Every structure is written in C-alpha cells, then in structure tokens.
C-alpha cells in the first residue's frame, strides 16, 4: 500500500483504530520526534496537501479524438442594430414567449434574405431556443452560417447522439438501412419518402419478406408521404399479407388512389347499389352490399363475424371510401353538387363521401361538400386564398361557431390578407369576442398584416375591461413595432 493510501485509510477510520503511517523517505522529510498519533496524521495530511498541489500534471488528450475546427464563415456577420435586437430577443426578451419565437424566426428569415449570419456569440442561446421551439429550428439555416452548423454537430456528438448522422446527411447508405433498428428504420424511410419516394419503395420492396408484421405495417405507413400510382404494385401485394395490420394500412393508402385497380373493383361493387328513385328521380337510393366474397374480403371489406350480425353499414363505408367519387356522378348523371342534393338526409353516406373527398383532396367535391356542410378537414384541402375567402364568409355570416374556425385560422399561412384580418378584428372586439381573442392570442400578432397595426392601436386605446383581450391587442401592436424595427435594422 502506498503512503497516500495508508494515510487515507488512517484518516477515514480515525487514529483511534488505525495507526498513522510514516512519511516516505523519498520526500526527504524527517518527522519530528514524539508527537501524538493525531498530530502526526495531521502533519502528514498537510504534507500530502502541499505535495499534491505542487505536483499537478496535465492530462493528455490524443490527436485522434479531436474534432476538426470549424471552417471559415464566408457570410458577413450581422452587426449594429440587427445584432443588438437578436441579443435582446435571446437574452432579455421584451415580449412573451410565443411572440419571441415568432420574432426570432423573423430575424432568421430577414438575415437569410440579406445574406448575413448570426454573430458567433449568440449561437448558443439561439440553439437553446431552437431546442424547444421547432419553428425556430426550421429556420436556423442558412442564418447560423458555417460556425452554427459546426457547433450543432459538436454539441450533438458531445451528447452522443450518433443517430443524427443518418438524419442530416444525404450520405446515409441505403445499404445500411436493413441494419437500423425498428423506429430508426421507419424514420429513415420517412425521410427518404420526402425526397426520393421511389428509392424508399425499392428499399422496402426489397426487404419486405425479411421484416416482421409490425415493421411491415409501420414502414408501409410512411408511404402516406408522396403517395403515387407507382406505389400501387407494392400496396396490392400488401393486401395479400398475412397480418391484418399490414392489410389495413395498405387498404387505407389505396383509398387515396382513385385510379387504382382496387378503386375500380370498389366502383364495381358500389355501382349496383345505387338507384335513382322517386317520381322526378329526386332521390338516390343506396342499397346495402351483399355478403363479401374472397376478393372483397381481400380488398378490406369486413367479413362476417364469428357470431352476431355483420355490420353492413361498415361494409358500405369501406366500399364508398375505396371507390372513385365519379361513381356517384355517373350514377346520377349530374355534377357533385346535385348528387349531394340527391343524398339529402343520408348523413352517414355523406360523411363517408366527405372523408373520401378530404383524403384525396378532390377539389371539385370538396367545394361542393363545403356548400352543404362545414368541416375543417375539407377546408384544409383548399388553396390558401380560397380558404381565407371562405373563412371571411363563415365569420361574417355566423353560420359556423367562431371557435370551430380557430384551427383553420391557425393553419393559414401568415400574414393574413387585409380582409380576413379586418373581419377577425371585428369579431374579437365584438362584445362576446373576448374568448376568441384568447384562443387566437398565440397566432394573431404575426397573422395580422402590418397595415392592421394602426387599427389595433386604435382598438387598444378604446377603454375595455377585458384584460385578456387588451393583452392580445397589445401583443399585436408590440409585435408589429418590433417587427418594424427588425426590418429597418436589416435595410
């Protein structure tokens, strides 16, 4: 045992139970004669303290583990007012968290547009904000520049996130895909679907037979992104699958392809069920489907359960969802709007048609259905200007509960057009609009166009007891003025 270890042991249990050691001769110290055991131990502790502190050695770090330094930044750094404003937003935000997020995003976009980058010293707080706010994370590039990308890499590798390499680089080898574990493989496939749907298809097709049922279902579900008629072959193959989960996923995906063979088969099943009725052929009668045959069961129509009655309406729903929508128009000989009129009162059938139209984003049918009913998912299919126009109409007419419009309003691209902005402001400043104001609080400041700032200011000056509403308006005014300073700072 070394001297230090002896000393440590004696100190730990106490000199009452463990004698103090003698200092090593190499240190060249001569212990004084005759002190007690305690004094001797304390003397040696003092010696050990001084020796340890005077003999500190640096550690060695190998070249091998060293990360490459950051390559130079070619973009100029943001200076002056622009840098000051970002610093303010990151370190002492003068606005609430939602507005801050929006303003930081605005800053990044403006910086990207003017070709400047974030000052190096502000990268850490910016990345910290991006860590919790996806909308900031999305706009980091190119504003954070080379140093920012490098820093992201350093911090990620420091946290040992090795999977990140597969995520950011295009370089990930598709050959390695089979090696990835379940959820990572799904994530990688999802990434590929966004950029190269065909590669993802070939990849999954090639490995299909080696995968577990759960993996097949999860991987196939990623085909919802960029689904096209090229995917039909693999989906048809999946319809034969042993596992119900895989079959259901394939059927749900094929529901979105009205030109597929399965859609044609569904059309053939739907057509005989439709019959125009009544004296003036004013009603479209829809019959119930017969007991499904093997081919129908394979296409996803529920078979007869072991006991109890089969759910025939559910079978009908499946057929409607799979069949092309023009089956209806060809059966009635009229357009979508009139066909819908013929189905008046058939709520379940109309609901199935609506979900089919929404899934396929069939604009003709979506528009016709929206005349009949309000459904956010239908509205979401329309191009933004048309959506805005309809939202203005809904808000003005009061036909739809304003709260139901919050979601569609959130989904609209910002800023809104002047007309929508004016209508919304009108609604929230109406007597009962306080609650709507609160629900829109997070998005309103950025959604209002700059021209609306003046109106907000006027509204704010009007006396109002509703503190929440005042806060929303004040946020809007604050956002606009800060945003104005940002724009000027980048001029």
């Amino acid at each position, binding site marked *: 045992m070394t001297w230090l270890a002896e000393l440590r042991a004696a100190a730990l249990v106490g000199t009452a139970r463990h004698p103090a050691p003698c200092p090593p001769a190499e240190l060249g110290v001569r212990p004084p004669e005759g002190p007690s055991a305690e004094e001797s131990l304390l003397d040696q502790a003092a010696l050990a303290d001084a020796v340890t502190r005077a003999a500190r*050695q640096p550690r060695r770090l190998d070249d091998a583990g060293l990360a490459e330094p950051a390559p130079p930044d070619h973009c100029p750094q943001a200076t002056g007012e622009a840098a000051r404003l970002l610093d303010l937003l990151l370190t002492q935000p003068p606005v609430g968290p939602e507005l801050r997020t929006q303003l930081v995003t605005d800053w990044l976009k403006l910086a990207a547009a003017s070709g400047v980058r974030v000052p190096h010293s502000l990268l*850490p707080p910016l990345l910290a904000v991006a860590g919790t706010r996806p909308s900031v994370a999305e706009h980091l590039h190119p504003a954070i520049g080379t140093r920012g990308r490098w*820093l992201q890499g350093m911090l990620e590798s420091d946290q040992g996130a090795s999977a990140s390499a597969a995520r950011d680089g295009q370089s990930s080898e598709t050959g390695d895909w089979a090696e990835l574990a379940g959820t990572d493989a799904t994530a990688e496939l999802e990434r590929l679907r966004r950029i190269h749907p065909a590669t993802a298809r070939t990849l999954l097709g090639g490995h299909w037979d080696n995968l577990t049922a759960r993996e097949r279902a999860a991987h196939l579900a990623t085909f919802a992104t960029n689904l096209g008629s090229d995917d039909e072959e693999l989906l048809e193959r999946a319809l034969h699958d042993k596992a119900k989960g895989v079959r259901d996923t394939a059927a749900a995906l094929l529901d979105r392809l009205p030109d597929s063979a399965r859609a044609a088969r569904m059309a053939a099943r739907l057509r005989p069920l439709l019959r125009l009725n009544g004296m003036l052929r004013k009603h479209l009668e829809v019959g119930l489907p017969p007991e499904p045959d093997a081919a129908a069961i394979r296409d996803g129509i529920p078979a007869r359960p072991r006991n109890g009655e089969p759910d025939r309406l559910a079978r009908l729903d499946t057929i409607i969802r799979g069949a092309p929508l023009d089956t209806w128009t060809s059966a009635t000989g009229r357009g979508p709007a009139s066909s819908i009129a013929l189905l008046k009162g058939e709520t379940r059938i109309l609901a199935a048609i609506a979900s089919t139209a929404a899934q396929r984003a069939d604009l003709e049918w979506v528009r016709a259905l929206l005349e009949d009913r309000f459904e956010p998912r239908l509205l979401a299919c329309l191009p933004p200007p048309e959506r805005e126009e309809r939202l203005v109409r809904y808000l003005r007419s009061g036909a739809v509960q304003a709260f139901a419009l919050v979601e569609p309003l959130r989904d609209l691209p910002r800023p809104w057009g002047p007309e929508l902005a004016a209508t919304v402001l009108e609604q929230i400043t109406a007597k009962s609009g306080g609650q709507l104001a609160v629900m829109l609080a997070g998005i309103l400041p950025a959604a209002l166009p700059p021209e609306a700032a003046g109106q907000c200011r006027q509204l704010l000056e009007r006396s109002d007891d509703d503190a929440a509403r005042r806060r929303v308006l004040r946020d809007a005014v604050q956002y606009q003025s800060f945003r104005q300073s940002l724009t000027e700072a980048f001029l």
Partner: protein
Amino acid sequence: MGRWSEDRVAGAAPDAASLAAARKLARPGPWSETGSNDVLVWGKCQGSGKTPYQVSVDLAAPAYRCSCPSRKFPCKHALALLLLWSRGEAADAGTEAAGFAREWAEQRADRATVRERRQSEQPADPAAQAKRLADRLALMDAGIADFSRWLADLVRTGMASARTQPYSWWDGVAARLVDAQLPGLAEQVRTMGSDIHARSDWTDHVLYRAGRWWALTKAWRMRDHLTPDELADLRVAIGWPVPASEVEGAEALPGPWLVLGAHRSDDGRLQQQRTWLRGPDGTVVVLLDFAARSEPLATPQLAGALLDATVARYPGSAPQRALFTGGVGTAGMAQTLGEGSSIRQALNAESAAVASSPWRERHPVLLAGVRVCTGGSGWLRDEAGDALPLVDAPLDSLLALTGGHPVDVFGELEEGRVRPLSAVVGNTVVTP
C-alpha cells in the same frame, strides 16, 4: 466621466428583471428635465403616481438615488435613465443640474467630508489601540488552540464518522471560529459541511483540507517569524483583513491596467466579484468586490479594456489584492492579452506559487494557443497535447466563439481545473 456603454449599464443592474423593466422605460416618453454633467445624470420619470420620480445618478461612485419606493439599487428608473443617456437619447450634457440632483450631490459631498473629518480628527490613542490589538490577539490565540483540538478530535474519530454529522455540527464549529475573530477559517469549515456530502472525492478533500487547516494553526503560532508577505497571506486565509484605509496610503502603481478577466459568484449569502488586472510592467493584481445578497456589486470591468487608473496593493505575495486609488477612465481596448504559456508551464508556475503561498487556492493563467474540446465538462488542450479540464465554463459558448481553433485563454487554475474568463478571438478579447 465618459459616457457609459450600454453593457456597463446592464452590468450595474441588480438582477435581470430590473434590467428588463428598465428597457421598457428607456424611451423618451415618460422622461422630463433630463440632463447630465461630468459626474451626475438626472431626470424626472412619470410613473403611476401624480408626481414624477426624481432620479439622480452619481457616476463617479457610482451611487443612485430615486424618489420611488423600490428597494432595489439601482432601481429601474435609474437604469432606464442611464440607458437613455448611454444611447445619447436623453440627458445631454451642458444643462444646469436640476435642483433635486444638485441638492443630493451636495448632501453626499457634505456627508463625505464630515466622515473624513471625523476619521482624521479622531484622537489616536496609542495605548488604547495597543490594548485593542492585544485583546484581539488573545481571542484569536484561544480560537486557534480550540480549533487545533477540534482537528485532533476529527482525525482521532475519523473522517467517516465526521461524514455522519449533520450540517449544524460544522456550523457550530464555524460559529465558534467567528466568535474568535477567525471568519476566514469559519467560512472554509462551513463550506466543508456541504462539500463532504456533495463531493465524490470527499475523503481526499477532507484529508487535505484538514492538513491545510492544521498547517494554518501552526503557522499562526509562529507568526512572529514570518516575513511580512507571509504574514499578510496568513491573515487573508484566517480572515483578518487589512483595512482599505491602510492600503490607500501605500505606493500607487500607475496604469494603464489591462483587464484580463472577471468572475462573479454568488453563494447565497454573499456575492463576490474578482477582477484580474495586469499593469504595464507585467504585475498582475486582483480586485475583490463584495456585496450582500440584495445589494449591487460594483460595475464589472470589461475584459480587454485598458483602464486609466492607479492601484494600490494590499500586502501579501503576488498576485496581490489591489484597489483603485482614484477615478477610473477607459483608455481603449486591447487587441490581445499578451504572451501566454503552455499548460505545463502554467502548472509549474502554480507549483512555485503553492510553495511560496500555500494558502492560496486560485492562480491566474494565460494559456497560449489552446483549443476547446468536448467531453465531460470540456477541456482546454494546448499544442503539445496537454490538457486541463474546465470548471464553471459554458462549453457551448466557448465552442461558438473559438470554433475549435487555437486561441489564447485567460483563466483561473483551481484544484487542477481551469475556469476560463476571457479569450482572444481575432484581435478582440471576448468573454464566454
């Protein structure tokens, strides 16, 4: 006095909330009758009440006064006024000082003269002074004797049993040391009361620390044989400070002084600020500022600034504690901190310093061409491949500023780790 920079104003804020509130107030709207001269900035701020608050700031001290009821110093009004003034948006120089500001300044000046007169007029009674000193030494001797008995008990029963003691046990020992006028030792014992539970290397830590305390008690007993510098170091370690008034009379060293770096800490009871300076002849000194929890610390000096000031040094071994003997002006910014050393050289210098002043725990180092590396709490690595672990360092900020390239770093060596306080990046001194 020159106009303050906005950073300097921010540094004067007692907390972030005050600064945020001040930023909201820092627009011309609520302000009236603002003005400034060489030493004063003043103005009136319309608050929620009927009469506007009267705000005055003495830039030289610095001292703040505001008629608002806030208990923060400086309050948001004073900060907002300084912000406006630092941006040149209000309080332009040249106007006659407002009545309230002038009155306040005169009162302060009067009080200061009265205090000075009282001090200088106080009849020095050598006999009484000698008796006070003898009383104090007797008290300290008894305290040291008591403390060495306690240390002997500590090692007789062992560190393991000391670890089972509650915090109040350590606190009791510390309280006795305070009564014996040994506050420096008391502070160390109190810290040990939490360190013994918090640290993974507690066995060695307590052992070495007990050894150091033991050596202190022995050094105290032979204090008559110590050199003046050694005695001064010992006095710092046990907490018998040399009064600032004695230091002010000492030889004043002229500047310009380069601010190497500064560190602020807050242990919950006391805020401390250390500022390391280097003079034109290479002398390194450290300024210490203390403030109770709720009070503001002195405005921090910006790393890399060249200060036009003279300092007087406390007795003790280098690097000595120092204080400014007059006003402080800024004489520009340095582009570099000077010639640094390798990590091995820095550790050798530390060893030499331990030999001459065994009570000092912190050593300033300027490391040349070190790279910031990740892993654990981070590392600094020099060209030779030697490395030191970082302590209290914002690793992400260091990486962002340096990009992993070799840079010169100034910091404090402490228990084999380095606390970086400033770095030189592209001809600018930056703080992580």
